[in-house]
């Protein structure tokens, strides 16, 4: 029995080669579960929905509370960043990329700056490298804080979010004093960084580092130790290692699935080859592991900031670069470990002052693809938990 009113979007036409590897969200499920001829309910989750983290739109096919199929539908935030970048000079692309991943803009900037430096063969002074590492870690903490806080909101706990926003403020003050902005930094430029630490930045950071372990304990009390929170996230949204690799995931979701691949460790950039840090790895790949990997990463990031403050070399914050950057023709790929995963920038240059082609490899897009596969079989409430645990940013998915 077919219903002409139901949207066709979610499901393949019947008989169209469902093979075992096809994401479960794309597999056709027969309507009419039993003799009662009950029908599945197709619900649009988003683009206006409080917990899809922006304008994500997911089509859910529901059998009561249970999700039968899910399909993400994207593009509500498409701004054509890749096209616009082809019409901007190299030093102006950073502002676009800030707006790609608007929660951790500095990483996307950094990837682009590195790609440009590769093309031009610019030697970046050591102080700039250390500053890049330090600010990457600062932004990583702010971004993970948002992820954890909104994850609490998704699960229904409002308090952690506001406690986290209080603590994030300390870091935003540092970012504001050094870069002049709280979100859209445009701090990392080809050749180095915009500015050195301001006099008030270091005491603020030291103060933060002193209080942060206490803050983390507070979040652990509010969320980690909560029986209901554990019941909601443990064993939910399990992504095994093979699935994670097959779907090209990266970042905390990949590490939660048991593969400790971190660009900072495997392809060291900035000053990471001189810093000591561990990469937390999960075991089961469920929402709990993804949550916990982030909590651990924040602790490690705080240690990294301290190492950076202590080991910061003296010198220039930027190499001498021409006002108009004209890299020779060629291609470059540069990857950076952002809070969401591997951000890659592939730049093709044709020798002019604008990139011929710039491709942004967003980790959120790859991490999101697994949603179609993981969601079926869970409850509606779990769909929110799964999306939140993947920590996607729609700006970077839609570009």
């Amino acid at each position: 029995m077919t219903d002409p009113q139901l949207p066709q979007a979610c499901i393949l036409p019947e008989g169209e080669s469902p093979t075992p590897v096809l994401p479960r969200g794309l597999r056709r499920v027969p309507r009419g579960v039993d003799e009662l001829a009950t029908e599945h309910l197709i619900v649009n989750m988003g683009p206006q929905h409080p917990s899809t983290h922006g304008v994500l739109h997911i089509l859910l096919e529901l059998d009561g509370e249970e999700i039968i199929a899910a399909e993400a539908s994207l593009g509500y935030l498409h701004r054509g960043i890749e096209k616009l970048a082809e019409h901007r000079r190299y030093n102006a692309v950073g502002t676009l990329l800030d707006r790609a991943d608007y929660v951790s803009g500095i990483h996307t900037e950094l990837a682009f700056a590195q790609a440009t430096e590769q093309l031009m063969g610019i030697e970046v002074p050591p102080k700039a490298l250390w500053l890049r590492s330090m600010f990457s870690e600062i932004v990583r903490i702010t971004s993970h804080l948002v992820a954890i806080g909104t994850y609490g909101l998704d699960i229904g706990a409002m308090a952690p979010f506001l406690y986290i926003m209080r603590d994030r403020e300390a870091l935003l003050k540092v970012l504001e004093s050094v870069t002049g902005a709280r979100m859209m930094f445009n701090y990392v430029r080809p050749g180095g960084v915009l500015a050195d630490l301001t006099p008030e930045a270091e005491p603020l950071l030291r103060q933060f580092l002193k209080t942060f372990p206490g803050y983390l304990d507070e979040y652990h009390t509010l969320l980690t130790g909560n029986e209901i929170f554990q019941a909601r996230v443990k064993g939910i949204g399990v992504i095994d290692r093979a699935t994670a690799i097959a779907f090209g995931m990266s970042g905390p979701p990949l590490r939660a699935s048991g593969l400790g691949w971190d660009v900072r460790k495997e392809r060291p950039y900035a000053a990471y080859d001189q810093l000591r840090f561990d990469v937390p790895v999960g075991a089961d790949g469920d929402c709990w592991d993804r949550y916990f990997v982030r909590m651990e990463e924040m602790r490690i990031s705080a240690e990294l900031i301290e190492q950076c403050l202590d080991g910061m070399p003296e010198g220039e914050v930027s190499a001498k670069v021409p006002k108009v950057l004209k890299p020779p023709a060629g291609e470059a790929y540069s990857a950076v470990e952002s809070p969401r995963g591997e951000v890659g920038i592939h730049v093709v240059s044709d020798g002019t002052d604008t990139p011929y082609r710039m491709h942004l490899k967003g980790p959120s897009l790859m991490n999101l693809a697994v949603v179609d596969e993981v969601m079926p079989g869970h409850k509606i409430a779990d769909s929110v938990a799964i999306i939140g645990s993947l920590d996607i940013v729609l700006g970077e998915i839609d570009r």
Partner: protein
Amino acid sequence: MSSAVLSTALTAAGISAEVSDEAFGVLARVAACDIAGALMALRDGDGAFALLVDLFATDTGDELEVTYHLRSFARDEDAYVRLVVQYDAEVPSVWRVYPAALYPEREAAELFGLTFPGHPNPKRLLTTDEVELPLLRKSTPIRTNEEVHDR
């Protein structure tokens, strides 16, 4: 070292490829019709390129390049596979080899006017139906708001 691995894996699978060391990594150029077989050989061969990092297209001005960025955890190496096709050409979908290609293929199809036969869900990914495609080809101009409005 990696280029040798690539060429042996591809020749073992009977696929003619042109492997070169570029500034950004090892690049294998294959024909469009061979791409699924080539990626399969690279994934299951000695290289063990388990991960598709990315897939993107480039408009060279005369034709389209589609690049597959692969990574091997076992060898700790990256490799690129590239194919060149005419505009509006068909490139076989590789989602059976790498499910990760599902979204990027849709994106490339939409923004460059390619077709990926065999893709299970060949809809637009980023734009709505009213948007004129393909946006990322060099022939598509950028217009300001005013220009769009006056059209």
